[in-house]
């Protein structure tokens, strides 16, 4: 017997220098879609916004989850901070509630003792979704290597879990 999911469909977006990772989560633990949307060259934010809009149109999420970079100690670049604000505004225009969580909140909610690396966070996410994301987990980064592009997907998955785990530090209601 099918049932309407009792939880909202969540779209989580994790921008980075390469584009963004995203996850669509339905119900308690059903990953509906996940992946990376690359951007390059000029106008990365315009490219990213177009791709985010396509995801919103396709999946009609009830909630979009993004990283809260409004705090002064956020180390994200100005471009990524602007992109997050732009995606939040676009989500509002599509009548989607936006929830934002800081990096520290993610760590506190998901990592033992609230401490650990991004790879350790990704490993916990891979355990949570072993069939979907387990095979995607990159090997641990060596000091001379750049972060693997797939790490954005795991960060997005961590963001997607946050509405269940914690109240948002900022919640932007959809416009009526």
């Amino acid at each position, binding site marked *: 017997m*099918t049932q*309407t999911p009792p939880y909202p469909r969540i779209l989580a977006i994790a921008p980075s220098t390469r584009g963004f990772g995203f996850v669509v989560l*339905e119900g308690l633990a059903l990953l*509906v879609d996940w992946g990376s949307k690359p951007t390059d060259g000029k106008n990365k934010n315009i490219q990213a916004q177009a791709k985010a809009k396509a995801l919103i149109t396709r999946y009609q*999420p009830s909630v979009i989850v993004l990283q809260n970079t409004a705090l002064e100690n956020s180390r994200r670049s100005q471009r990524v901070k602007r992109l997050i604000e732009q995606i939040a505004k676009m989500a509002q225009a599509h009548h989607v509630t936006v929830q934002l969580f800081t990096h520290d909140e993610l760590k506190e909610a998901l990592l033992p003792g609230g401490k650990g690396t991004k790879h350790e966070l990704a490993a916990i996410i891979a355990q949570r979704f072993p069939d*979907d994301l387990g095979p995607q987990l990159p090997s641990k980064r060596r000091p001379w290597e750049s972060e693997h592009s797939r790490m954005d997907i795991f960060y997005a998955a961590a963001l997607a879990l946050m509405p269940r785990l914690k109240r948002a530090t900022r919640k932007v209601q959809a416009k009526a």
Partner: protein
Amino acid sequence: MASSQLPNYLLSNRKRLSLSQTDVAFLLGAQDGAKVSRYERFAREPSLETALALEVIYQRPVSELFGGLYQKVEKEVGERAKVGAPKAAQTPSNLKNARRAQIFINLANKSFITS
């Protein structure tokens, strides 16, 4: 706020099995992945035969793969059953008609007895 289900969950099932659209197209007997892409983008519904082939490939029942569509059909059948239930209840009382009436009631109430 709860969401209704998506028309289908073909993409997530394909990704879970690490299959490409070309792989699935081949297994469906299609020339390329374009059809698979259309199904996954909710642009087109597959035929019954293709839906059953997808059940074979993804090892998930059709009703689960096409959750949103199944939800819609279930609701429509339930509404028609509500309309038909009173009439079914008015038929002469015997075991066969009682079972028939009960089926209508169960469909109207979104439950189904198999025995």
